[in-house]
């Protein structure tokens, strides 16, 4: 089986590749690429003139909700949403019930992700840093690593004790396991519902101060510096957090970070009149934060863009703002938001865009992904993006069970139109049918 992707702009940050040409997938492996590839008798041909051909996207921050919260998302619906959003590999966080703190749960996730009813994207489980996510006793991380976790995390229950975090870092250094940390001091953020700022003051909502995030980013960066543990700060939102990470990198700490699309495009003002679709953690901040975040994306201080996919059902978010859960869906809007707010505004070049969505997250977590090099990935993982496709995001047409999106009704420029993950092929309705043909190309 030969699939020829013709005339696309091939972008592979893993080898600094940015050429217009053809890419051949043969028997679910990348067989080659080049400016004009001579291919005899391809079985199918996609004409990708004007489109990007990128390594399959990799997400570091997805809540798949199964087991425990299947009304919000399942591994099947979540991975369908992933491929529709261009992701061929998603890291699922331990925010399940029970939390992913035992090898049997890791087996369960991997089995469910490999089942034919799943969406076809690879799932890389992230283990709970502490037993039951209680922040007290470190999980059996060596057994979890053997079972297949790619990182340990405290997302959903940020580790408050500096002592526990320091020991977890020692432990993870020995195991060569990165820590994916949610940096939040709960004594400062407690009871808060949105950014502590002029909008929360106006609405009479309790605020989450920026210091709640920054204090913990600083602590975790220092612990990483002193233990040598690889730390990935997931979801930076304030200029102070960005500056702390910049400083930690300067000092040589093995620290990386990611940002969610809503944190490079939206501010606290989006909350408007108590709109729960804009209730996130960390909360949406201010224009000053946005400006520094954009600069840090541009200069590389922010390494990755993560979807921060946190699905909830309708009845869970149709409640007073203070009672609504934190989080929004993200897998199917991340590419649209990234191209619209970053690439088309010259914050990121096309190659850097792909790096932040694919190659960098794969590198940080040492995953088999983020590259078009033959043999770098178990099967061919390729995402095709039409950078100039105008569309309006509408949760009516998304695969995720969660419809809590801040992007509902927003116009995007740039869309995922094809996702190849081995034998699994997602073809979006936005891909023009006349650009596809079967059998040999007519001469």
């Amino acid at each position, binding site marked *: 089986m030969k699939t020829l992707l013709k005339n696309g702009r091939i972008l592979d940050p893993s080898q600094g590749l940015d050429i217009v040409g053809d890419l051949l997938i043969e028997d679910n492996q990348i067989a080659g690429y080049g400016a004009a590839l001579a291919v005899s008798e391809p079985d199918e041909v996609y004409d990708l003139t004007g489109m990007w051909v990128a390594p399959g996207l990799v997400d570091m921050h997805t809540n798949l909700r199964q087991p425990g919260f299947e009304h919000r998302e399942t591994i099947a619906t979540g991975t369908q949403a992933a491929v529709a959003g261009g992701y061929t590999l998603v890291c699922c966080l331990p925010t399940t019930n029970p939390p992913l703190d035992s090898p049997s749960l890791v087996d369960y996730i991997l089995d469910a992700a490999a089942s034919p009813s799943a969406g076809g994207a690879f799932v890389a489980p992230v283990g709970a840093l502490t037993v039951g996510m209680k922040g007290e006793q470190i999980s059996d991380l060596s057994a979890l690593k053997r079972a297949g976790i790619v990182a340990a995390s405290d997302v959903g229950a940020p580790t408050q004790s500096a002592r526990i975090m320091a020991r977890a870092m020692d432990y993870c250094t020995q195991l060569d396991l990165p820590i994916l940390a949610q940096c939040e001091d709960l004594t400062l953020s407690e009871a808060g519902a949105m950014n502590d700022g002029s909008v*929360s003051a106006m609405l009479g909502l309790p605020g989450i101060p920026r210091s709640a995030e920054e204090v913990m980013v600083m602590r975790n960066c220092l612990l990483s510096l002193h233990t040598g543990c690889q730390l990935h700060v997931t979801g930076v939102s304030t200029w102070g957090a960005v500056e702390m990470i910049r400083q930690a990198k300067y000092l040589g700490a093995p620290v990386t970070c990611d940002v969610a699309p809503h944190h490079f495009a939206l501010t606290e003002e989006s909350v408007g009149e*108590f709109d729960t679709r804009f209730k996130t953690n960390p909360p949406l901040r201010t224009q000053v934060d946005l400006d520094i975040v954009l600069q840090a994306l541009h200069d590389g201080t922010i390494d990755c863009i993560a979807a921060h996919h946190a699905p909830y059902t309708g009845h869970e978010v149709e409640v007073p*703002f203070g009672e609504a859960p934190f989080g929004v869906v993200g897998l199917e809007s991340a590419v649209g938001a990234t191209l619209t707010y970053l690439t088309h505004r010259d914050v990121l070049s096309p190659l850097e865009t792909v790096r932040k969505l694919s190659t960098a997250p794969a590198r940080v977590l040492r995953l088999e992904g983020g590259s078009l090099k033959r043999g770098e990935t178990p099967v061919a993982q390729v995402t095709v993006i039409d950078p100039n496709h105008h569309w309006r995001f509408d949760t009516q047409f998304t695969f995720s069970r969660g419809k809590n999106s801040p992007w509902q009704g927003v116009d995007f420029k740039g869309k995922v139109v094809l996702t190849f993950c081995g034998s699994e092929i997602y073809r979006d309705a936005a891909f023009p049918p006349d650009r596809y043909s079967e059998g040999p190309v007519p001469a």
Partner: protein
Amino acid sequence: MTRHLLGIRSLDADSIGELLRLGGEFKRRVLDGRPFPALPTKTVGMLFFEDSTRTRVAFEQAAKYIGLNIVNFTTRGSSMSKGESLKDTILTLRYERLNALVMRHRQSGAPRLAARFFGGPVLNAGDGAHEHPAQALGDALTIIERKGRLEGLVVAIVGDVQHSRVARSNAWLLSKMGAEVRFVGPKTLLPSHMALLPGRVHYDLASGLDNADVVMCLRLQKERMFDGLVSSVAEYARLYQVTQQNLEWAAPDCLVMHPGPLNRGVELDDEAADGDRSLITNQIENGIFVRMAAFYWVFGHGWHDLERFDREEARA
């Protein structure tokens, strides 16, 4: 478009002015025993997720004067305490054919959510630290009765602004009507970012009261001390209590107000609370008349309906 009274922030000066005129007129007619238009055949539900006897009584009195039927709900022992969502509670009340809803809730913005599902008018009787519009209307009517105007007055709002819906609604109303608002209190009880709130901050009582025409004290919740926001009641009282003595800093005819319930000896001393300048009892009474106006107004009526009523009365 259904009219609601969700807050003062979303009202324009014309609407506020009309509500205040209606409130004043209803008061005169009630006190004089003169006729005024009623709203019979309508039923209003009193939905208090937070206990508040005084606010509930004020709304009930107003509803009775204006001819509304009242249905009371207790949230304890009802479906709401059995885990029913706010949305489902509101939908139930809608199809039990209630025409309007008076709602108190501990969460800011909850009445706005209720308004989305209810269909008829929703009147906010206090939501979290967001708004308490009827209180602000009653307070404004009280000031107007003494001062004849709001425009140009200097009003000092003293105390726990951060947690106060009364402070926010009053600030919006006063600033929209041309008064100058000051927020006075310790840094821990003032919002950390004031850019979108209409008033200047004074941490010090003397500068806050300087030449003020009206002083509005806010209630200090005792639990604030446990949050580390105030070190002790005594210290708060020493720094921010409005007394007969420190009212010397204010304008000579300065008025003193408090939304209640009053902690005597904390926010106000006895002399200031009971003195000639104190309007605390007037605030309570006027609260009823502005609520009559609010009911009349949310059902789509205005000043011109009152005039038409008078013409028809004269003809009859």
